[in-house]
């Protein structure tokens, strides 16, 4: 009986939730959003997601191999990076540029720091920020949703040859003969012309925008499911959205003609996707509960300030990157009060 007895140290029980399970669940929660993106924008969106995810996985594999860290693709975190990146790009974004974004995001944003757990910023956003700076035209070229024939033909710009300027889409869009197509996203319309589209359109995704950012409602449902599965810290998305709404509210109250309504702020642009799936990135957000709330409010409020007063139409990407940067500082400010410490015990007070 003595033979083969096992010895390990306590605790001898373990909850069976592991990192790969968490990451797989997040991927699962992203799939409906990806499916809707493909349904809305057709083949181009599908190719875009496949490209970003494929290149991200390859980059992870390559650098893990290079640094002898073994197979880190199996933790599934890089799949999230790939999908998220694809979802934040315009549906007709040239594939070669998307590949660059995925490579830069994973290589500079993650592998350079030592892989999963060590990255300071969200890798998908690092990749997107890089291409935003490198290809400013392509990343603001929007195409209409629900174009006829979207499942049989590609948006012309998708297959731009590497290192070439993107193929203009104006002629192709004109050929679709859509009524009321202005080529601008709701955010741009609001910002420059103070035209607010019906809020229901923004929530259901019947608008132009990045591949996976248009339906705020769908993202909300997927995010809530993830939070219900306890795979996401609900404090972060909630405080990001609260921070955005609360910052937008006073401006709208003062000048409703010029500033957007708080619900438009919540439903438009990439805020919903960013709040639920990017700001909540465990690695790059503060680890303390109070820190998470401060971090979320900061990102939400910064997003609105960039939107209203910055040169950019959408500010959530930079808001999160800045939030990621100050995250460790917020963490160290908000260290939990240890049992029995600081607070004077009541017996002494008596």
């Amino acid at each position, binding site marked *: 009986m003595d033979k083969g007895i096992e010895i390990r140290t*306590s605790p001898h029980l373990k909850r069976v939730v*592991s990192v790969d399970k968490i990451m797989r669940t997040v991927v699962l929660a992203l799939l409906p959003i990806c499916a809707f993106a493909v349904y809305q924008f057709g083949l181009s969106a599908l190719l875009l997601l496949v490209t970003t995810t494929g290149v991200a996985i390859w980059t992870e594999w390559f650098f893990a191999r290079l640094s002898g860290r073994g197979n880190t693709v199996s933790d599934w975190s890089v799949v999230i990076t790939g999908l998220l990146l694809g979802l934040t790009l315009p549906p007709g974004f040239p594939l070669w540029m998307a590949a660059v974004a995925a490579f830069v995001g994973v290589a500079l944003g993650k592998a350079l720091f030592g892989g*999963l757990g060590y990255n300071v910023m969200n890798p998908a956003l690092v990749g997107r920020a890089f291409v935003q700076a490198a290809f400013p035209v392509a990343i603001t070229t929007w195409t209409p949703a629900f174009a006829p024939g979207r499942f049989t033909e590609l948006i012309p710009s998708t297959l731009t040859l590497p290192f070439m300027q993107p193929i203009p889409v104006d002629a192709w869009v004109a050929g679709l003969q859509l009524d009321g197509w202005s080529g601008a996203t709701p955010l741009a319309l609001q910002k420059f012309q103070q035209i607010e589209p019906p809020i229901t359109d923004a929530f259901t995704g019947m608008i132009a925008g990045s591949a996976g950012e248009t339906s705020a409602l769908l993202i909300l449902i997927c995010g809530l499911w993830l939070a219900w599965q306890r795979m996401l810290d609900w404090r972060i998305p909630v405080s990001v959205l609260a921070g955005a709404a609360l910052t937008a509210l006073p401006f709208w109250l003062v000048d409703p003609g010029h500033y957007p309504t708080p619900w438009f702020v919540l439903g438009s642009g990439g805020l919903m996707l960013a709040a639920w799936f990017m700001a909540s990135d465990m690695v790059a957000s503060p680890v*303390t509960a109070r820190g998470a709330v401060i971090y979320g409010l900061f990102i939400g409020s910064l997003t609105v300030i960039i939107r209203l007063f910055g040169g950019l139409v959408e500010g959530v990407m930079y808001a999160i990157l800045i939030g990621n940067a100050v995250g460790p500082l917020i963490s160290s400010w908000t260290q*939990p009060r240890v049992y029995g410490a600081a607070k004077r015990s009541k017996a002494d007070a008596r």
Partner: protein
Amino acid sequence: MKHQTAVLDSKLAVEAGRSGLMKRLNSSFQSLFQRHKTFDHGIYPVEHKELTAHKPIRRLPFADELVIPLQQHKGRPAVPIVKVGQEVVRGEPIAVADHFVSVPMHAPATGVIRAIGLAPTAEGPKTQAIYLKVYHAASQEVLYGEHREPEQMDAKEIIQAVQDAGLVGLGGGAFPSHVKMHPPAGRVIQTLVVNGCECEPYLTCDHRIMLEQTDLLLRGIMIALRATRAERAIIGVEDNKLDAVAHLRARIPKDLPITVEAVQTKYPQGAEKMLIKALLDLEVPPGGLTADVGVAVFNVGTLAQMGDLLPKSHGLIERVVTVSGPAVANPGNFMVPIGTPISFLLNQVGLNGPVGQVILGGPMMGMAVSSLDVPVTKSVSGVVALQPEAPDVARRQVYPCIKCGECLNACPISLNPSMLGELAAAREYGTMAEEYHLDQCFECGCCSYVCPSNIPLTQYFRIAKSINRDAQKHHEQKQH
């Protein structure tokens, strides 16, 4: 009486049959209406108490040989007063305490001293122990000791009597009980907290003691109240044992200053600091004693033994042990003589297949033994035999920390295990203690339990603390 037990048994059986999810839903639904007190954070491991909760305490035959280590408690080891070849009677003192923080040992059975030498322990290194060959033909009646009335004794006499009885914390801490009854100068014990939480999975011995040894427990509480001069006693019981709460409430006479309070079923509710927080909303200062907040905490098993032993002036020679776990064929609660080898216990209850780990105590804080020759000591509340783990489970992949914050939400004393783990990996043991309160960690295991990256945090902290202790010792030696 028999009928009542049967009803109770069937009730427990029904509860055991309910699925885990239903139980969780049910308890969270109940908690909407009646919130029992608790502490911050903590975890909810599967309890597995249904295996033995309904089984009355039984006795087993004596093993052929008992092994009585001289150090089964915190403090100085006891000093043997018997010689090899000497015959001893059950209950006779065989080792004495030569210091205030130490306790004597008594012969757990009538027999002959075969040897005094090294014996394996759960902790690892071998220690001195008395080997006692049992006379199976003896009546095993405790003949030692005479009747007395602890209720007539003063505090000092009781404290001496408790030390003479060899009583230590039977919940697992094994700290000499009489030391806890004697608060340091300038401290006054106002409240006696009686710990009936039993938050470790599998263990049910305290549950059975509350149900079966109620009068002994109440007598023990009254003795402890007298010795500590506390004004009142609160029995804290986790709300997975509401039958024990109701039973105790029904049995406590109205004029006694004893109350029973249900607390939430949550690990580690049974840790002293957590129970004090839950019941009294007091926090023991870092590095301090429970006496600093006017509290003394005793386990129900300890007090039941106190109520039994003191009036007869007997010594502690046996204790209730839960023998359970998936590898055990007939789990149960047993009154086991101190010194009984684990192998003998497991033979008695039978095994249903191969055994992986055998744990003394509960699976969260208990120790896996390296040899089944290790005996039951005064601190062993349970013997849990687990099945071998599947290779893929045993070799769980360790991922980097993803800062998910689960460990912060689990740590009952609000440490930052994530940060402590990174510092441990970087060997910054000093920083861990100075800036991140490492010394406050009592190794409850919650952080390791929840960590999705499978980082052995508790083990890291154990190592870091021992390295810090060594460094401290080294530093002090240098100065002298």
